[in-house]
């Protein structure tokens, strides 16, 4: 090989690199391991984690992962492919993205969806940018203080450098009515950080009267039963697909989604898959509307996103196919049943106070009247991650279909005992 290239050593291939840049030291890395050694190494690390029964949500939900999903997503034709640039040999990827887009539209009630975003918080941040880009000479966005803290933080980060004015407020409607002059958009949660399903009745009209866009941040699993962004009149829906069968995995990889009204289609960030035909008339799928994207428009693109979370979108698509409409309803019914049972049983211990009015689905927050740290530790000692204290001083619980009545009773018992 060297002979054909016309050099005498591998180092000659780096003759154009200034000599003092060639690293001559020993790399400060561990000595190479065999497969067995790597396995042992990670098993050692795994043993330093404590496996807990998770009764906390806050943006990452411990739903059951059907065994079909990892079986499908680990198929190497899906796993080891790149972005589907060559559509003739990528119909698998393109078709599941088309299915994902369809399912996101059906969950949110909106007209079009993109191929995925990094996670829910970045999708929210991109939606805020989209509001500003879609409304002329407007640069302020109202952000509900009841969104999850990490969603608000990510929005703030993106907005800070883009020069977008962010108004975080508890009183969204009031702020819309009289507060902000150059309002481009408003973002509110479908289910808020306290677990309460919010009513956005009348909000869309108020926002639209000001010439701005309404964005709703949603848990897509809950959208099977709670009012959809379209039903509330929202223009854009974003959220995290993690609740659709993606393991907790210490926070990632997850997948963000974004859907919008048709009028905003060409403002969407990221990849979009569309249906077309080939020369012989066969139905097929391609990356489309690419004139929005960075590889064509460079600095004029709607976003800089390139790699997204395609495989995690497959994860959710397989999940929703397995669950179907009835499975999703049943799942939510189980969450509702379990969470309300725990909620009432915890209140009955007298160690908490109820502070939030309104309906909840799987997650709820209470005001503690006991030593929270002691309670958390007692729960941890029994193998439960439950009753996380939020920055507002409340404690939060989440019950999913994975949990059992025995576990709920045990939690209540432990709380009683402290």
């Amino acid at each position, binding site marked *: *090989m*060297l002979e054909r290239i016309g050099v005498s050593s591998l180092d000659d291939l*780096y003759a154009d*690199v200034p000599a003092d840049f060639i*690293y001559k030291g*020993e*790399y400060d890395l*561990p000595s*190479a391991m065999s*497969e067995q050694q*790597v396995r042992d190494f990670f098993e*050692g690390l795994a043993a330093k984690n*404590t*496996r*807990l029964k998770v009764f906390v949500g806050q943006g*990452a939900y411990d739903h059951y992962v059907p065994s079909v999903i990892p079986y499908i997503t680990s*198929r*190497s034709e*899906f796993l080891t*492919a*790149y972005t589907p*640039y*060559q559509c003739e*040999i990528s*119909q698998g990827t393109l078709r599941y993205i088309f299915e994902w*887009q369809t399912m996101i539209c059906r969950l949110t009630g909106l007209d079009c*969806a993109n191929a995925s975003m990094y996670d829910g*918080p*970045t999708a929210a941040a991109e939606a805020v940018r989209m509001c500003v880009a879609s409304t002329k000479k407007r640069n302020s966005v109202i952000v509900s203080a009841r969104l999850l803290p990490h969603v608000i933080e990510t929005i703030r980060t993106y907005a800070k450098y883009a020069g977008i004015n962010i108004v975080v407020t508890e009183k969204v*409607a009031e702020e819309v009515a009289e507060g902000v002059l150059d309002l481009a958009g408003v973002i509110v949660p479908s289910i808020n950080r306290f677990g309460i399903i919010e009513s956005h*009745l009348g909000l869309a009209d108020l926002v639209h009267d000001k010439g701005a866009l309404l964005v709703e941040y949603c848990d897509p699993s809950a959208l*099977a039963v709670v*009012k*959809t962004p379209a039903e509330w009149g929202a223009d854009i829906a974003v959220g995290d697909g993690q609740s659709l069968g993606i393991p*907790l995995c*210490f926070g*990632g990889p997850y997948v963000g989604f974004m859907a919008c009204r048709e009028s905003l289609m060409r403002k969407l960030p990221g990849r*979009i898959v569309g249906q077309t*035909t*080939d020369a012989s008339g066969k*139905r097929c799928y391609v990356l*489309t*509307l690419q004139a929005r994207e960075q590889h064509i428009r460079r*600095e004029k693109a709607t976003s*800089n996103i*390139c*790699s997204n*979370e*395609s495989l*995690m979108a497959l994860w959710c698509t397989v999940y929703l196919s397995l669950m179907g409409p009835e499975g999703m*309803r049943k799942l939510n*019914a189980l969450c509702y049943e379990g969470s309300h049972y725990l909620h009432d049983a915890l209140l009955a211990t007298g160690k908490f106070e*109820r*502070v939030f*009015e*309104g309906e909840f689905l799987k997650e709820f927050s209470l005001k503690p009247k006991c030593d929270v740290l002691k309670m*958390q530790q007692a729960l*941890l000692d029994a193998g439960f991650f439950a009753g996380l204290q939020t920055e507002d001083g409340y404690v939060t619980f989440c019950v999913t279909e994975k949990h*059992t*009545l025995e576990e709920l009773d045990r939690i209540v018992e432990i709380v009683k005992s402290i």
Partner: protein
Amino acid sequence: MKYYDKLIFELSKPGRIGYSLPDSFGLACEAVAQAGPCRPRLGRGGTTPVVGSEEIGFFCDPAKKTDSCDVAPGEQPRGKAGIWREASLDLPEVSEVDVVRHYTNLSQMNFGVDTGFYPLGSCTMKYNPKINEEIANMPAFTGLHPLQPESTTRGALEIYVGMDKALAAITGMKHFTFLPCAGAHGELTGLMLMREYHMSRGDLARTKVIVPDSAHGTNPASAAVCGLEIVVVKSRENGLVDVEALKPLLGPDIAGIMMTNPNTLGLFERDIKEIAKLVHDCGGLLYYDGANMNPLLGMVRPGDMGFDIMHLNLHKTFSTPHGGGGPGAGPVGVSDKVLPFLHIPRVSGFHGNFGIILRAYAYILMLGREHVKMAGKLATLGANYIKESLKDCYKLPIPTVCKHEFVFDGLLEDNGVTTLDVAKRLLDYGFHAPTIYFPLLFHQAIMIEPTETESLETLDAFIAVMRKIAEEAKADPEMLHGAPHCTPIGRPDETTAARQPILKYD
């Protein structure tokens, strides 16, 4: 590959199920028991309709009944007042075997690294070791909630510490943040750090960033998202950044420069020392786009070249699978100068793509300090070997030694055959196509990156096919215009797809 026509929605039959759930918690609780299978739809519909969301989620009257199980579930109020979904949910109703067969059939229309050679330039499609998948799927890692107390996640945290140390050793940077989920996300994060650095010094006028004309499209796009103006610096005939053209661009308004080294033509920017000095002297910082780090793996450290901020694509250089377009991970490393700001940008939800970081760590541990020095060299060897083997059939605009990738500018004797035709014909022969029509410097660009995990036999087979296509171009250009001929579908009508978009199944 066989053509399979179905969408999952077309397999749907009412009443068929693919899920397995317990019936209920078995609670005696009245309200729950009465409500039937659609309990949450019935819920407690009593929330007061108000404009906006102010009344919801606020402090309730403590005198009110608080035992929600005691409240009889009523029909939700009709119209907009209710909080429950009214529209039906149209998801597929299919059995488990329907789902498995459907997605297995879909997968068989896909080409991955495990299927064959994937010389996609700037994408570093190296083999993805299977042990990494197994490690990343260990329940002790996948079962961790991101907000669990530190005392229960020590193993996971050690992985971040270990990766930080390993990446610092490989790149010569001080420390990394692992929040970015992809390369472009890393670029954005890195530019945020660049801005933090200048802002901390009260140097607010630095609002422009220099990007070479050969840069990846994400560079200018990331700069724009970060609120920076883009100034393009031209390349010279030899494909390298024109230092003389750079000089007049430098001034008190320049935040920094984004460089890819080797650049997208696969050429090492040998003037980097002078460029670094010029940019630093004008008060700017140097950003390293790590998309092309692979040939420098084990050879050259960006930190030693004077870069202040960089990202790595763990899904390129560090062998994690691309997943059909993600998830990846784009950790960002910084020099001492930028270190104080590393914690500032909160660019994603929790701790970045932990599962990807795990895989990359396993890769680094198997490579170890013994083998790391061979990775980049072998990638460079393969690229130069293909380049030299094909330059008598394909136009090689820049004939010098390349690094991990290089660019042809179409066929030498094209006979009307375009780069697109060549790429599509490659699919017929069982190879993925190279990156085409990028970089923008050449109109018929074919950008080839073989990576170090390919054998000589694979490279020779690819070379033979590329030569054959060059022959076919002379003999039968029409046949090439119609390629591919052996794939599940032929060339799609992309114009109609964009003009009359169909983005979902109805």
